[in-house]
């Protein structure tokens, strides 16, 4: 299958290994990757801030480029939710409403694609560490991603998964929320890494690198040695 892979803007800049991991995993499974170099962002920042016309300017390019794709895989729960669930709302009442719905039907978040579309299980990965999993809110509640990452992690050799209390509780990133209400965002992040620390895990794993970026930023400031890593990197470790 030819898979169009959408890489979030911050993953491109700051967490490229996660994107590379996704590419290598899918290629190993025998698929070809179409990477849309001209796309950089899903439009969520403007959308979340209430600037829907400006968000449409960016999103329409995504519609144009991905409209003819066979399958679109998005390596992020939050960008995935944006394109799959929120584009129809963003374009409601415009000439692009139908195209947004069509694209939505073709989109999958990465772990969901592996498990639900490809029936993948053991990817031959090895990651001998104790980890805990953070369920990113958009992936969890907008896209129904809960079991898929866990199914994949269960096959990773040497990996011990310990669930944290309040795994489904928001980490506090929320996009522009983290800058508009930093004190609330920080408190929520502190609660999140507090729960993670209680598990004794070395790594927090998630399918959303924006959540991890926020929590890692807090951990680094506090000098806490807990690490964060995107699931694509874990699944690509050998």
């Amino acid at each position, binding site marked *: 299958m030819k898979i169009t892979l959408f890489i979030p803007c911050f993953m491109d800049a700051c967490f490229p290994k996660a994107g590379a991991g996704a590419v290598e995993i899918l290629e190993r499974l025998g698929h070809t990757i179409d990477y849309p170099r001209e796309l950089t962002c899903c439009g969520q920042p*403007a959308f979340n801030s209430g600037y*829907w016309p*400006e968000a449409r300017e960016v999103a329409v390019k995504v519609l144009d480029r991905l409209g003819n794709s066979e399958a679109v895989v998005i390596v992020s729960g939050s960008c995935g939710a944006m394109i799959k669930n929120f584009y129809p709302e963003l374009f409601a009442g415009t000439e692009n409403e139908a195209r947004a719905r069509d694209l939505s039907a073709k989109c999958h978040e990465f772990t969901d694609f592996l498990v639900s579309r490809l029936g993948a299980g053991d990817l031959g990965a090895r990651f001998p560490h104790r980890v805990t999993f953070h369920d990113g*809110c958009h992936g969890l509640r907008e896209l129904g991603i809960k079991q898929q990452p866990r199914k994949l992690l269960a096959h990773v050799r040497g990996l011990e998964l310990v669930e944290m209390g309040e795994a489904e509780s*928001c980490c506090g990133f929320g996009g522009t*929320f983290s800058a508009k209400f930093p004190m609330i965002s920080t408190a929520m992040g502190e609660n999140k890494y507090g729960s993670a620390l209680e598990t004794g895990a070395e790594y927090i794993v998630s399918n959303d690198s924006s959540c991890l970026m926020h929590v890692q*930023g807090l951990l680094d400031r506090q000098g806490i040695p807990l690490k964060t890593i995107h699931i694509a990197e874990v699944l690509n470790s050998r």
Partner: protein
Amino acid sequence: MSITREASEFKKAAAKLTKDLRHRSLIRNALKKYEVARNAKCSLFQDWQAARQTAAEIKWDAINHLDSHLAEFARNLEAHGTHVHWADTAARAREIILKIVREKKARSIIKSKVMTGEEIHLNKALEDEGFDVVESDLGEYIVQLRHEAPYHFVFPAMHLTRGEISDLFARELGTAPTDSPEELTMIARRVLRGKYIAADIGISGANFGIAETGMISITENEGNARLTCALPKVHIALMGIEKILPRLADLALFLPMLGAAGAGQMLTAYNTMYGGPRQPGEPDGPEEFHVVLLDNNRTGLLADPEQRDALHCIRCGACLNVCPIYKNIGGHSYGTTYQGPIGSVITPHLRGLQQWKHLAFASSLCGACTQTCPVKINLHHHLLQSRRNAIAQKPVWWEKIAFDCLSFLFNHAGLFSLGMKLGRIGQVFHPLIKNTRFDPASAWTRSRELPRVAPQTFREWWQNRK
């Protein structure tokens, strides 16, 4: 951007509460207990999700045919001797109630929990005219003594420890200090006993209004509403017009859903329907029953078909209990009657979009509220819609410029690529200004380290593969 007074106060309160670890721990423990009880009760339902859908459809019927249901409700109330009053605004509702209270020359008024009463600032209006008003719900009684607003509309005193309540009672009532919740409750019970018996007027709210039979329904645990509506000669009920349910039998679904989602109980101790004043042949009960129907901008929200379902709310408080923002900033920070996700959705409609839009922005849009709402209100999507509406009305000039620039940047991958390269250079020097007033990223770096642009970005890695 000039920030409204409400937004500024909200930010100050939030800043203070988010650092208060004692508060954070207290609320977290209280809500954990609730969560355990709620999950237990919801799992007793044979199909909680189907129940939510049915409840959503019944409320859809109620709200989207509100004119006929409300007219039927009033007609049936009047048929049994109840006086029905219609109040356009908060001021009118206060006037109507004051008029009744004045006519009765009331000396003492007892109230059960009335959120619409908080909304219209009823207590203050009564007290300003010299009437003695006592809150009978234990939590409300406590915050009334502290001259505070309720912290949570189901658990008004959630933020207080037994020690603080004991000190309060010692100070205001002259009672001996105690750290037993039972003894503290008995103190309040004893004090309020006399008030029930002496009160001329009882004021209550209503959880639901049943159109088919002309009844209000009140859900409670303490029995204080039962007493408020039993002993005084006059009973006044204040009710928002959106509380309508079409049929009496709808309560068979709504009472347990309200109990389970709101309090983690299959049913609260008392669920009572009132259909009129004392009827012929009945040995007791008020001689007069008044129902005051309150609009106060609910019709404004009704006129927004996108967000109309916010009027389906049954005020269970479940969305507050699961909201990570609420858990960290507490109920008082909102600075308005209705807190938490539902409060953030309806307050801009009830009190003004531009003054209260900050509540719509103060959310990470995690969606836990929408997931838990027993009547399936699309809460977090409404927050997004309110943001859009607020910005469409009044864009923030520098934000608009920033997003226009960002759109351009994002639509030109070459520029984006260049931007990342520049970022790599810039981050070498950033520590010089990090977390100072020259730092453009100070909102982030106040408490967090910035992520680093990788030595090789994804698109560079992809390019190099070829």
